[in-house]
């Protein structure tokens, strides 16, 4: 593994090789899943609830270890990554959750700034970058609002702005439209596609298979933990 996450000269951004995840030796959440995602590529990870989508994202996020198989993300081989380097990995991953996970006592601006603060960026850089990403996702006007004052769609855009602020190697979204209506869901998917066009590598996990299919992106379909379809 190279030690420089900023060296982005790799074609394959994510490599999932024969990954199996079992819980207690009885429940198989993922079974021998393999695929590669190239730099600048976007994929929808689809499947019903319990198909293994969230488990796969947790493994990529290094919240859990696979029972067998390997995952590499850019310069990181996750199996070899020591615990003290997990924060470093996560600064190079953007994660959007279904429930937004915004800090209630901080404004939208401060929530976005958090990811840059923990990365040790300067105040000037933070101010500039937060303005940029909030404009990019269309919530700049709401920068002084607290999460409770935002609609679901706005809150999720703020969470997205936070996820992309550090220009991550890979943007992961776990059921980001789970708490949104159809219009907001579609708008958000369009926003992910726009970010992808601007160069971001994206995986969006969703159970909304039909809507995901509308965007002409790669579909990775999971059923009972197995990769049943890869539209590449």
């Amino acid at each position: 593994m190279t030690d420089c996450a900023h060296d982005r000269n790799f074609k394959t951004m994510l490599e999932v090789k024969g990954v199996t995840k079992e819980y207690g030796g009885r429940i198989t959440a993922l079974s021998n899943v393999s695929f590669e995602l190239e730099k600048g590529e976007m994929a929808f990870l689809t499947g019903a609830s319990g198909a293994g989508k969230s488990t796969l994202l947790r493994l990529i996020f290094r919240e859990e270890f696979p029972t067998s198989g390997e995952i590499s993300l850019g310069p990181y081989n996750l199996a070899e990554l020591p615990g003290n380097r997990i924060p470093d990995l996560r600064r190079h991953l953007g994660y959007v959750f279904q429930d937004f996970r915004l800090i209630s006592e901080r404004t939208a601006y401060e929530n976005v700034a958090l990811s840059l603060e923990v990365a040790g960026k300067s105040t000037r850089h933070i101010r500039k970058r937060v303005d940029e990403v909030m404009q990019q996702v269309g919530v700049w006007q709401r920068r002084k609002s607290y999460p409770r004052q935002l609609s679901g769609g706005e809150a999720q855009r703020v969470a997205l702005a936070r996820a992309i602020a550090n220009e991550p190697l890979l943007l992961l979204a776990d059921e980001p439209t789970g708490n949104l209506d159809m219009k907001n869901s579609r708008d958000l998917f369009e926003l992910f596609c726009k970010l992808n066009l601007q160069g971001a590598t994206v995986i969006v996990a969703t159970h909304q298979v039909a809507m995901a299919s509308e965007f002409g992106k790669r579909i990775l379909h999971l059923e009972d933990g197995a990769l049943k379809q890869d539209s590449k």
Partner: protein
Amino acid sequence: MRYLLKTIAEIRRAAHHQPLSIFGTIITILLAMLLPGIFWLAANNMTAVEKRLKANMTVDVFLVDDISQAGIEKLRGELLTLEGVSDITFYSKRDALFRIRESFGQSIIQDLDDNPLPASFSLTVDDTILEPEAADSLVAHLSALDQVEEVVFAREILYRFSSITGSIKRFGIVITVLVIFSGIFISANTVRVAITDRREVVEIMQVVGASRPYILTPFVLLGGLLGLIGAALSSLALWLIAGYVSRNLAELQFLSLHEIIVFILTGLLLGMLGAILATRRYLKV
């Protein structure tokens, strides 16, 4: 700077969200540290008294009644060569009588025809002679000398005093160890509550890649600050107690500035240790 502001904000937030817990922790640390503080104060003062006792400790060598001037001079020469004897003073029979008069008044000896008091040498001895074995050996040696009638070395009071001081110190150490454990526990408990209160924020920080020190430091500093304030208030209480005792019972020497700093830093360390334990136990970062 930003980091410091973040830490201050966390501490203010904790004080705002759990004021009773914060206040209770400070008071408990104050009271907990008061006990070893009192022992420390007592041990210090007793050690000072012990030093004064040692400095004034003498061996009185009473001479036989018919000792000649030449005998006195020969004995003086012998005594001066003894190891551990730093100074000697001779008291003649007249001096002894004078000292009795000084101490007890004229009436106690006015009916006596003759002066019954013996002449004596008073030996000032150094610390090596105050050890029991050395003291016994010296007394035995002096008692065996020809011209010596009796040797009086009133060292029992010193030994008793040293024994009490030693007991106080040992008891103080036990109390201090207990207080260290209870202080750590109290601080850990308060920080645990603060962590539980901030669990959501901690999880989000982990998601965005905050390092372990970035997340934990505010909690550790919170614990340290509680310990510091508790110990500072405890030393203030100790000062008030020492002042009261000095005015009403006996003159007490308060802790030195150096000792007060050690005392307060101990509180800081206790608080931080407790917080570190709490973060290890309750924060899986």
